[in-house]
């Protein structure tokens, strides 16, 4: 009888071990898949930082599409990327009703500043400095919003 009593806590501990093993395995698998997506996005953002005008617009639309397709997962992990995708979409839409003057000093300054913020963001993300990365993305979004306001 005594040996049977111990079966209760023992079975709880064994069931818990199985639960922990399989749950962590599943979460790690999903996390790894999402990490690959984030790494690809960071590569694309770094490339975007070097582009201007038509190339910038085309690349940013592709980035927006990639972010939108992983929106649910990214919302929990990198919400700043999702909000950046929205603002990119707004900016690209604005190009339809207010085309940019090519090679004007103001437009060049816009792309230069966006590029600097993006590079800072990517570099902070690679250093796993989330605070700095979020700060940079907030600054970038504020800058693009100001540009959108100015254009409207």
């Amino acid at each position: 009888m005594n040996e049977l009593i111990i079966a209760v806590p023992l079975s709880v501990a064994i069931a818990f071990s199985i639960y922990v093993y399989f749950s962590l395995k599943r979460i790690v698998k999903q996390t790894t898949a999402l990490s690959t997506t984030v790494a690809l996005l960071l590569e694309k953002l770094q490339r975007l930082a070097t582009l201007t005008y038509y190339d910038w617009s085309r690349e940013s639309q592709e980035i927006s599409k990639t972010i939108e397709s992983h929106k649910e997962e990214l919302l929990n992990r990198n919400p700043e990327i999702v909000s950046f995708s929205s603002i990119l979409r707004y900016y690209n839409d604005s190009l339809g009703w207010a085309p940019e003057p090519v090679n004007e000093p103001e437009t060049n300054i816009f792309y230069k500043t966006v590029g600097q913020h993006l590079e800072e963001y990517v570099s902070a993300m690679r250093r796993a400095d989330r605070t700095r990365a979020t700060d940079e993305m907030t600054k970038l979004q504020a800058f693009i919003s100001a540009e959108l306001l100015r254009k409207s």
Partner: protein
Amino acid sequence: MEFEYLFIFDTLIALVTSYSYTVLAEKMPEPGATITLLMLIVFLFLLIEGARELGNVMAGKSTLVNIAPGLSVKWIIGAFIPLFPVFYALGSNLSDIYFFTTRALIAVLAWVMPVPYIMKIIKDRQGG
């Protein structure tokens, strides 16, 4: 907010387990009592170390992929450690095994119960 929950869970587990172990140690002859208290120290070490690693994940200083193997081992060992006094009592033919088993069950449940919620927090944070 998740940091506060983690802190509250860990404090409750530490209190419940420390109480359980102290009561068990009082009922045990030597060297069982000393070994039980040493087990309590190991248990508390696993608890604090696990919380530190989880805190790093929540703060974004570390990733789950890095800590998952160590964390799963700590959680599994932590679930089995409270069973030691029962095995000792069985091996030493102590009377009132039921008393030891209920205390062990309380300690195991205290350890196990917050884990699904912690898993949910980690899953949300990691986007899994």
